């Protein structure tokens, strides 16, 4: 007989097998999910969920697909959170803290409560990456926020109304485009291709009999 636990979905009690995740427990209870379910593997942030264990004051946040049920868990999903995403032209943004002041001035109203960090479903130091954004250190902000799945739980807890995931998104794009070193071998290869440097080689492969291609493939040298 499999072990079961009692959970409370939006306050209503269900008895479910203890080895389920919150997501599969909802399906076990009879829900057909449309919202609040995405990649089911912890990458997409669709299934942000908050819960409390009965008798415990602390509010927890997690991804429903990545978290096992526990006895006396009070669960509410957060399938959508109204983040503010500012529109900008990546070709024209200033690469300094001006851009943050223009687009996301509320980050300067951070009160340092650290509720965002405590709530992060990925265990990121959210308040720290916002601090980096405040001073225009996009590389550090990008690095610290890299594993963000943009579930929005941090923002739901923020007294200053900051949309942390969108701030980090902007920082990462600026970092990727303007701050990471440019890549010479890539530029060179694109130019070679545009100049037709490989046209003959490719044309030759296009018309080669399959037997010859098999020979080429089976005898190719593999880089160590």
């Amino acid at each position: 007989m499999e072990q079961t636990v009692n959970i409370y979905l939006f306050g209503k009690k269900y008895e479910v097998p203890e080895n389920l995740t919150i997501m599969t427990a909802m399906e076990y209870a009879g829900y057909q999910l449309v919202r609040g379910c995405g990649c089911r593997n912890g990458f997409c942030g669709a299934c942000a969920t908050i819960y409390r264990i009965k008798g415990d004051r602390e509010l927890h946040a997690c991804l429903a697909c990545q978290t096992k049920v526990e006895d006396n868990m009070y669960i509410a999903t957060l399938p959508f959170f109204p983040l503010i995403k500012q529109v900008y032209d990546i070709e024209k943004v200033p690469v300094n803290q001006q851009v943050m002041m223009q687009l996301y001035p509320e980050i300067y109203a951070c009160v340092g409560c650290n509720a965002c960090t405590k709530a992060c479903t990925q265990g990121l130091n959210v308040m720290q990456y916002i601090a980096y954004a405040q001073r225009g250190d996009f590389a550090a902000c990008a690095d610290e926020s890299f594993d963000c799945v943009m579930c929005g739980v941090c923002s739901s807890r923020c007294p200053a109304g900051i949309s942390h995931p969108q701030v980090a998104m902007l920082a990462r794009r600026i970092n990727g485009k303007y701050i990471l070193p440019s890549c010479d071998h890539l530029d060179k290869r694109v130019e070679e291709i545009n100049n037709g440097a490989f046209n003959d080689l490719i044309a030759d492969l296009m018309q080669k009999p399959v037997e010859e291609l098999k020979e080429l493939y089976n005898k190719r040298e593999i880089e160590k």
Partner: protein
Amino acid sequence: MYSEKFKAALDAVAAKRDENTAYEPKRMTADEKDALLKKYHPDYRVDKFETLKVGKNKGEKVPTELAAMLQAHSRIAGKQIPLDTPDYDVDVLIIGGGGAGASAAIEADKAGAKVMVVTKLRMGDANTMMAEGGIQAADKPNDSPAIHFVDAYGGGHFAAKRELLSKLVCEAPEAIKWLSELGVEFDKAPDGTMITTHGGGTSRKRMHAAKDYSGAEIMRTLRDEVLNRGITVVDFTAAVELLLDENGAAAGAVLMNMETKELLIARAKTVILATGGAGRMHYQGFPTSNHYGATADGLVLAYRAGAKLLYADTLQYHPTGAAFPEQILGALVTEKVRSLGAKLVNKNGDVFVHPLETRDVCAASIIRECDDRGLGVETGNGFGVWLDTPMIEKIGGAGTIEKRIPAMMRMFGKYGIDIRVEPILVYPTLHYQNGGVDITADTMTGVTNLFAAGEVVGGIHGRNRLMGNSLLDIIVFGRNAGRNAAAKAAAVKQGGLTLDHVTEFEKQLKDGGVETDLCSPKLLPDYTREVRS
């Protein structure tokens, strides 16, 4: 956390770790691979396939579960749907909000077309988001598009459409450059050199990555750009049928709000199908690494409208799906784990295959180990083999795992398994639809003005895809489809809309003797436990 019952097997792996780390297993010959695949690869299990009775691929075999969807009734069969007052009227309608759809949207918008993306879940809810390992491009001095071509063509068993594959490899460096310029953070050395690794079946290290969030990093950047451009995105809305004009050209789609079930009509001058894959069809009962919405919708829509499919009988089973703990059964363990040096080891602690054979060969080897040879490890949900992750730190030094594959460390860490010091259990998982809708080099399907890009397409990779060529294909062909569909839209004279092809298909089902109660497309898998109602 591993319970006591795994102790003996864990000890066996640890005891041979040093020896195994240094050991270079030999690669199989072409004949050995053929024999292995025929005996153990799921694509060769004839009893799991069914011959189609209707449509352009009549007489060909496809997975039983897919046949049931391709030969099911339309969701709108018998309904009277007024088509003369469309709810949306655009130049280019893009169905699907993953990497291919987003790339197409950006390029079509850039070309000046009025674009609309419809997606049945949210923008970015797609297999793209879950691609971990990387994206191939021959941009190093010791590499070339021609070498990339040979690797992919051979890896795909010499079955790829060469005009598609040559486009893929020749436009790969440009795709990386485009992504970099949009702000995708590729792993680079301080001098800007791309940090690249091998994937299974590559002969050069051309796998570019953004840690092990490569697809997520690409997807969130593309999504951000789509939103910056103000492109219309209609989410939680599925396409349930294509609309044609009187001449049989694609001219829009019937849409369904996933929450309210309201039907809506979108009229368009051209349509791009970017609906992705089929892992959630769970062919042959396999678990899957795929997104919740991967249910082969695009194949169904295109097939009913008269398009032809190519290689719909070949699926990719990723060799390393998580086999333990059961909460993450089937979840992808990126091939990058093997690129970085981890080897596959059986219950006796012996390496049984070169870790960088192609995916189909690795998957078949694991099945053989667990099947006839009886050398798999019992997991409680079946069998698996070890993927010895601690080897990575022996080769690359302490800290390599946290730096290069943080998502894997997190995924197992949540269940008390520290992959830096303990190996993990893996078994093949349904990962990718190798086949799909047949397209020409200009990305058009057999239906005029119906374009396709991404996993829904078949033929680019032949009968097996190499790691890192899928993220590449969604970018290259997504962009091409966007540009081509926008250009074509400018010249299209729209006629009246019709659903006659749906009526005609229903007739074919009847004439072909297909008896079914099912409707398609499937849209979402049904994981709800049956409760009395």
